């Protein structure tokens, strides 16, 4: 018990040091003590003179800081949505994209890249809107007689994903090659958007979605017992499930709209948290997943920025790290990982 509390405390505190050390990483080399001094100066003496070139401050505050924060909220969004959807679908193997959100967001982004190249923010807006549209299509298709069985949601998600992917293929087919490269690069997922603009637009949406899931996290335990049992315990299953799905979609669509499809985090992080802490209780799993997800994506993005002389898409890194790690968990824990 106390060991678990210690682990949780460490997990919840760790994002801060990871955030600060992620500011050290980048193409332009600024040594860590200088970065720390820049941070301290900004906190206590913003207008004072400094021994380092002014461009250093621009790099730390206007390039690295928003990017690292984007990784932080993105990792949080993907893993919290993964944890909550796994509860709703009563299945620990569900990923954030099960509702068709990624296919919708991908189609939206492709439309933006191919047909509105000059319009600022069009890719992001279309991607967010289409991600949401995909979710509502899935939900509407699955709903019958005021009831939305989980199995219908899964099937509807598969259908909607297939449909939106086919539409995406049509758009790719009619798009000239340099724009097509943009679509392909977007689909790989990257945090290379610059500045505070996109972050300030999506962070409130992600935090709103997170707040809903955070306060409903114990309720998700009950929902994971099955519809009939939850109803008999007094839960308005339809309403509660819709709220959690909506909150998840809000978080994921918002993040995907600026960063593209970054896979595996929603699956790997909640799983790791459950195994690490030895409990499926979402009262602990949701905040711990938020924290570990944020850490995971910040570190993955540090690697994406530093392992090669050019930048790698971070989605490739999360998959390269996530898939083998998941395999390791599976082999080590055997079937008991799913019980």
């Amino acid at each position: 018990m106390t060991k678990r509390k210690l682990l949780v405390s460490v997990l919840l505190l760790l994002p801060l040091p990871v955030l600060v050390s992620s500011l050290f990483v980048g193409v332009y080399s600024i040594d860590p003590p200088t970065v720390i001094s820049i941070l301290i100066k900004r906190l206590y003496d913003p207008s004072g003179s400094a021994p380092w070139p002014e461009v250093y401050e621009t790099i730390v505050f206007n390039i690295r800081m928003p990017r690292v924060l984007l990784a932080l909220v993105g990792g949080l969004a993907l893993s919290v949505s993964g944890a909550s959807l796994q509860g709703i679908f009563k299945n620990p193997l569900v990923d954030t994209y099960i509702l068709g959100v990624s296919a919708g967001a991908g189609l939206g982004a492709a439309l933006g890249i191919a047909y509105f190249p000059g319009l600022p923010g069009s890719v992001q807006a279309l991607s967010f809107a289409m991600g949401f549209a995909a979710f509502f299509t899935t939900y509407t298709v699955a709903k019958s007689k005021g009831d939305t069985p989980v199995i219908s949601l899964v099937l509807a998600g598969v259908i909607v994903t297939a449909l939106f992917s086919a539409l995406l293929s049509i758009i790719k087919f009619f798009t000239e090659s340099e724009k097509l490269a943009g679509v392909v690069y977007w689909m790989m997922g990257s945090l290379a958007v610059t500045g505070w603009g996109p972050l300030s637009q999506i962070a409130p949406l992600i935090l709103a979605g997170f707040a809903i899931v955070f306060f409903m996290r114990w309720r998700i335990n009950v929902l994971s017992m099955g519809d009939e049992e939850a109803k008999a315990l007094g839960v308005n299953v339809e309403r509660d499930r819709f709220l959690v799905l909506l909150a998840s979609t809000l978080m994921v669509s918002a993040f995907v709209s600026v960063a593209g499809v970054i896979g595996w985090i929603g699956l790997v992080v909640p799983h790791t948290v459950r195994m690490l802490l030895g409990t499926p209780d979402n009262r602990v799993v949701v905040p711990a997943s938020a924290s570990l997800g944020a850490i995971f994506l910040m570190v993955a993005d540090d690697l994406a920025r530093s392992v090669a002389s050019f930048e790698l898409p971070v989605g490739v890194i999360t998959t390269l790290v996530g898939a083998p790690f998941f395999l390791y968990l599976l082999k080590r824990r055997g079937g008991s990982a799913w019980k």
Partner: protein
Amino acid sequence: MEVVSVSGLRFSYGDGFSIWADSLRVSEGEVLTLLGPNGSGKTTLLKCINSLLQPTSGRILLCGRDIRSYTRSDLAKAVGYVPQSHTPSFPFTVFDVVLMGRISYLSLFQQPSGTDHKKAEEALSTVGISGMRDRVYTNISGGERQLVLIARAIAQEPRLLLLDEPTAHLDFRNQVTTLRTIRRLSRERNIAVVMSLHDPNHALLFSDRIALMKGGKIHMEGRPDEVVDSKTIEEVYGLPVDMVEHSGMRYILPARTDDGP
């Protein structure tokens, strides 16, 4: 005091199978058993009483109020439901599962409080399974799970307890302990109990009243000695039986056939 009263109830699945229950009443501290073969409508009737299924016609009063006027959470404060146990997807502890019984007392964004934890502990000790609190629900036996689900229902602080075949899949000893626990809870806490059972002997031993069900209808209803004899059991189950007496209690046994038991 009367806790449930069912009158003129009819429910149809739309595939030809329907159930009828003209009149059924259960009072505080009373155990009513629905006894009948597979497919006689016991589970359907239980689900109607808990509003998990909506009757086609008829009326169910719970504590004097029409059941349709209850919200889902108000209903859960009055009615504890013990389903046939299944394996959930996540390895919650026994305590986690029992605590879930408190959800009807919490608002949408609320987490269980110290009071809820205390009520869950009390429910565990009432059922006599406090020693199991930290065990993993997915790893315990069927009999233990049944008791955990009963404790969860008790944490709801219900006036009425509905149990769907609480002895299914249990071994000989667990069947008897579970039924004893149910009867004790009904007496101690003045809870009205409606449960479905397969075995006429269990019904004879542990019921205040029995409703014999056959083909979706209540065949007979009354005190065990009025309802259960070799004739009525044979009518309902379609199997010749004998009735024997042993130390003041009556038992139903399958009748001997020409080529042996």
